[in-house]
């Protein structure tokens, strides 16, 4: 009689832990509205910001193999001005995770993601092995917090930008970005 609370507690705890573990190690998922993008493990070692989500898109859908990384950076933005210039995009969009060597292709443009304003810019990226890549960096903000996305690969910049923005605009990604910016 006295042991039932312990047993019940253990069952609940084990259920919760196994559920969490299953979630953490779930197989890569196809994403709603755009089956071309497959979630992959965050490929970078730990840095100043917690890991975000990473995805891969194949040649058929994206014009070349493209990887996309998305994560919030809480407390990393000019609280009132937001992302107002291209220098800010160059500084924050995680290009340095890929390579120290990049150069913008053109001035950036304004963009909105998950109802947050910011800027998008295309880059030439010289990978550590010397191979050239194209990258698309997006930085949007709400109050003092940033959300950054970086797509890179061998696809043409325009095609890569279209595919990345379409995927980021899906309701599933919008929900995730909104929740991530709220610390959920």
């Amino acid at each position, binding site marked *: 009689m006295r042991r039932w609370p312990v047993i019940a507690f253990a069952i609940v705890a084990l259920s919760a832990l196994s559920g969490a573990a299953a979630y953490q190690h779930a197989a890569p998922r196809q994403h709603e509205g755009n089956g071309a993008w497959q979630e992959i493990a965050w490929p970078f070692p730990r840095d100043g910001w917690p890991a975000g989500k990473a995805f891969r898109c194949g040649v058929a859908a994206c014009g070349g193999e493209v990887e996309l990384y998305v994560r919030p950076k*809480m407390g990393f933005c000019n609280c009132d*001005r937001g992302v107002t210039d291209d220098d800010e995009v160059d500084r924050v969009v995680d*290009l340095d995770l890929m390579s120290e060597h990049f150069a913008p292709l053109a001035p950036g443009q304004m963009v909105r993601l998950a109802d947050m304003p910011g800027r998008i810019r295309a880059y030439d990226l010289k990978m550590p092995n010397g191979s050239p890549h194209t990258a698309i960096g997006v930085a949007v903000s709400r109050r003092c917090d940033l959300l950054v996305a970086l797509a890179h690969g061998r696809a043409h910049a325009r095609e890569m930008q279209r595919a990345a923005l379409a995927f980021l605009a899906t309701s599933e990604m919008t929900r995730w970005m909104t929740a991530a910016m709220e610390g*959920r």
Partner: protein
Amino acid sequence: MSGRLKLAACFSIYFLACAGIASAQQQVIGGAPEALNMKLVGTSDLQARSAYQPTIHHQGDRWIAYIGHHGGSDEIPAPVNLQTGKAEPNGTSIVDVTDPSQPRYLRHLPGQEGKYEAGGAQMVRICDGKALPKGDRNAVYMLRTFGGAAHEIWNVADPANPVLVTRIAGLKDTHKNWWECDTGIAFLVSGAPDWRTRRMTQVYDLSDPAHPQKIRDFGLPGQEPGSTGAVPTELHGPISTGPSGNRVYFGYGTNKGGILQIVDREKLLDGPREPTPDNLRIPEIARLTMSAFNGAHTVFPMPGMPIAEFAKDKDGQTRDIVMIVNEAILNECNEPRQMVWFADVTVEKAPMMISNYTVPEASGSFCSRGGRFGAHSSNESMAPVFYKKMAFIAFFNAGVRALDIGDPYHPVEVGYFIPAITAATDKRCVKIDGQDRCKVAIQTNNVETDERGYIYIVDRANTGLHILELTGPARAVAGIQ
């Protein structure tokens, strides 16, 4: 009572006890300050303006506190100045603290319009005209930031009636400057419009404050105009040891990717000025790159510290130490802990962290009190009363912490003071399930000391200025009678 009933009762008691403990840590208006070996001497409400940098200046036979402010809040963008009856954007408070138990608010000098970090006049430094090589001997000069747009110099010889002397404008940001009063050389934290970073250094000769002479722009290679690739962490603030020490210590970063850069002052001032990557590297002696988890808000040099433990060693009895203070940014511990680090830079090419300090979270349940918890800044006065003996650290909701740093390899906390909140103390919020959940707690932002041994702390959440003094064993550490 059945077993189930007992169990339910136990759980109820447990949860009520937890709630009780949590609420016991929450500050309440009218509550007593929390203190150890520090006591309150006097206060000023600073017109309930969010405060950043205090500088205390001995001016004739008076002691004047100059306090920089952030911009206003969403609720009150421009608080009313009771002296003028007008709403004024936050700027600089000037307070006579000759009698620290009765501070007299002399003047509010408005700053740039704008809220929070975007407005105000956060930083302030003071030099006497008679100390500057080409200054007006009757003048006292206040160098302050004007939001992110400009640096200004005012003559505050009559602190109640400042007079604008000059303005260095056209910037995209500003921050914590350093001004050598004996040479006039100023290291202005600026955002030059063509640089790729929000904050870098503009070196000026302000020996004649009425006629500023630009010497050069400086920063980390990769930040300069025209460069490509990764942009290094932005500057927070420098501290110079002047011509005698011939070093400038630059702190980059606040709560992320901190860098301590050790620079040869003479090479910085006299070297080639064009901001090319090579020219920017010439004055650099070494860097200490910190963990990506921590920034370098304040880098406070303490050269030539005798270390008692090493006294009988044939070499290395004295060490050059730099205290590095991180800045906590996010409320309620939503980031890695920001704290205090001590670096031994005696062998300049290989600076090494030797110790650290933080407030134990459990000592006050600080992560759940509300607002920021973690370090922000230290006192920057090098007056003998505390220099190389004690350091004071602003720790947001943990108030100010007094450290015995006589042995920087083993810093020890010897006192603290957490002011009580008032009706003016502003809330701090975090998002919980998409909704704001707000708490009110003290947010000690900055601290400074004067030559008399008083400690001045100011609050980011509008609670004003608190003037403190050491008591008991902490007083003995400083050698104050």
